[in-house]
């Protein structure tokens, strides 16, 4: 930076062109670096889904055929998709995932918005400590928790049931969502509540009429997080669910489309792609809000 300004000062006498030239070459270099790294990242991230897509369009014979380039499709077919969509079990997985995720997102948002509001605004004994505690629980990984949770879920008679999952997933989503919402609510100026208080609002009205609308980007970010975590959860359903009729997509696909050591690769790929669709759709819809949410959260710890 200082070098650039210095060279600008030196170049002052020698006309506008040399200045523009040096600036644009600097800019071009920056652009090249940016493009190169972006392309590299894109390839790394997109190669697996593209390969999945290609494979999902092949018949079993073509997949098993080791000759030729595996990135090319010779006889494209939709048979994997039609087989899956005609398979009531697969549709059941989809429905289960939707029920679980919908309920988990709802439960998560209700709990975390209320908890965050209380922790951010109502100064009560231990509120600071609690706020930190909430975050610490998020740091405990689910691979550590599933064994004790198995006991709890078993004790409640909810093993092998989507309701058990609905109960358990919020332990993954609530702490982080609460944390996001505390940050959001804390960034709302204190005078706003005081104005609302004087205007005649009670705590509930303050939450619903001021805090929730003002913190909408944060709520959307938290919703997307809860949706993604719940949709993609793998460890808990693997541990708690045993029969196909209660399985969500994540484990349904791998457990039911793999028979002993027969892998229905085409269907697995097609199923995985279909399973990835809802999050993609949700992201696409809420992307603008989500990004606004992420950056606003970033400036306010």
């Amino acid at each position, binding site marked *: 930076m200082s070098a650039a300004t210095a060279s600008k000062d030196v170049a002052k006498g020698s006309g506008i062109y040399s200045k523009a030239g040096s600036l644009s070459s600097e800019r071009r270099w920056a652009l090249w670096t940016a493009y190169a790294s972006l392309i590299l990242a894109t390839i790394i991230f997109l190669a697996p889904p593209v390969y999945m897509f290609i494979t999902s369009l092949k018949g079993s014979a073509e997949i098993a055929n080791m000759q030729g380039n595996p990135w090319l499709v010779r006889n494209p077919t939709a048979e994997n998709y039609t087989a899956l969509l005609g398979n009531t079990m697969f549709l059941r997985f989809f429905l289960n995932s939707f029920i679980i995720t919908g309920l988990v997102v709802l439960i998560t948002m209700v709990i975390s918005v209320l908890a965050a509001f209380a922790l951010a605004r109502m100064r009560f004994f231990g509120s600071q400590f609690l706020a930190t505690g909430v975050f610490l629980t998020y740091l405990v990984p689910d691979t550590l928790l599933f064994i004790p949770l198995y006991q709890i879920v078993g004790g409640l008679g909810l093993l092998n049931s989507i309701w058990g999952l609905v109960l358990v997933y919020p332990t993954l989503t609530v702490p982080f969502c609460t944390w996001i919402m505390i940050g959001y609510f804390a960034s709302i*100026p204190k*005078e*706003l509540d*005081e*104005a*609302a*208080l*004087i*205007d*005649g*609002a*009670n705590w509930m*009205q303050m939450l619903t*009429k*001021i805090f929730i*609308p*003002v913190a*909408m980007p944060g709520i959307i970010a938290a919703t997307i997080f809860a949706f993604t975590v719940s949709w993609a959860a793998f460890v808990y359903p693997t541990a708690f669910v045993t029969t196909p009729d209660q399985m969500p997509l994540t484990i349904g696909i791998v457990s039911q489309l793999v028979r002993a050591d027969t892998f229905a690769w085409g269907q697995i790929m097609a199923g995985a792609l279909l399973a990835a669709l809802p999050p993609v759709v949700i992201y696409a819809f809420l992307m603008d809000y989500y990004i606004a949410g992420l950056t606003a959260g970033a400036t306010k710890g």
Partner: protein
Amino acid sequence: MAQVSLRKIVKMYEGDVQAVKGIDLEIEDHEFVVLVGPSGCGKSTTLRMIAGLEEISSGDIAIGGTVVNDIPPRDRDIAMVFQNYALYPHMSVFDNMAFGLTLRKFPKAEIKRRVDEAARILDITPLLDRKPKALSGGQRQRVAMGRAIVRDPKVFLFDEPLSNLDAKLRVQMRTEIKKVHQTVRTTTVYVTHDQVEAMTLADRVVVMNQGLIEQVGPPQELYHHPATRFVAGFIGSPAMNFLPARVENGAVHLPGGAVLPIPEARRARYAGAPGMDLLFGIRPEHLTDHRPGLPNRADITITPEVIEPMGMETLAHFHLGEARDCCARLEPTVLAEPNVPIVLSADMNNMHLLDAKSGRVL
């Protein structure tokens, strides 16, 4: 509308910070009272206790004759305007102003009538559909005032409402606030650290210092008859000059040998002064260029360090003995120059003598 009474109000914050140390104040119906004082003197705390946003550690606050100590803000029938406006960012200007009425379940037509009326008074009718972020600072301030006006409360509370505006707009909005008060006549408590704002707006000014009230009175009275050194130095700009002094033989003796005779009419008042350590207090406007023939004038010779021509007047800065940063206001026609001694004339009818120890004005 109502009067507001503060009786022995104390506020202790956690950690034993005593922000307000027992103040008594009676505010009349329709009155515009300004709390003024340096930053941290407890003005906001006092205002927030009236609003019910801070608990009162001890003492009583009554609004309209009812003690409100345990009444929550929403039931005190007050409206407050904040320094940072505190507009609801997701609501239109109309909804911002209507919010309090909506929560109180006023009929739609009544809400619209009141908001339109307030918008007309404040000249913001064309802005009613906008969101706060599409408004300038001055417009936001008007909306914040509108939000207070529509409620037609017993008391308006303002906490430094103009401090976020630039100087020119501040002067304009000051006039605006005064105009609004003359229209709606609501009892008003206004907090500012700016003594000019206090002087221009107030029916009565309350000067606060370190959690206590120094003096209460109409602006002119505070200006001409300050009770303490703090008030004397705080009110007026440039500030009053204070010079160490003694009184002997009916005259004030200043460092450097100047002897200023005390006017006949004021002698009795200073009967006890001889022998005390005193401060001679005089405002720059009462320390002017030499004008022969005026009664009750006394001459002091000083050497200006800096001359500041302001157009309608010229300020001369000087020091006299240990008293630094002294200032005199000269006619613009006077040709004063730095480091050239000049004879000034002190208006002895408008001087003050203060007890150097207690700071009391004699």
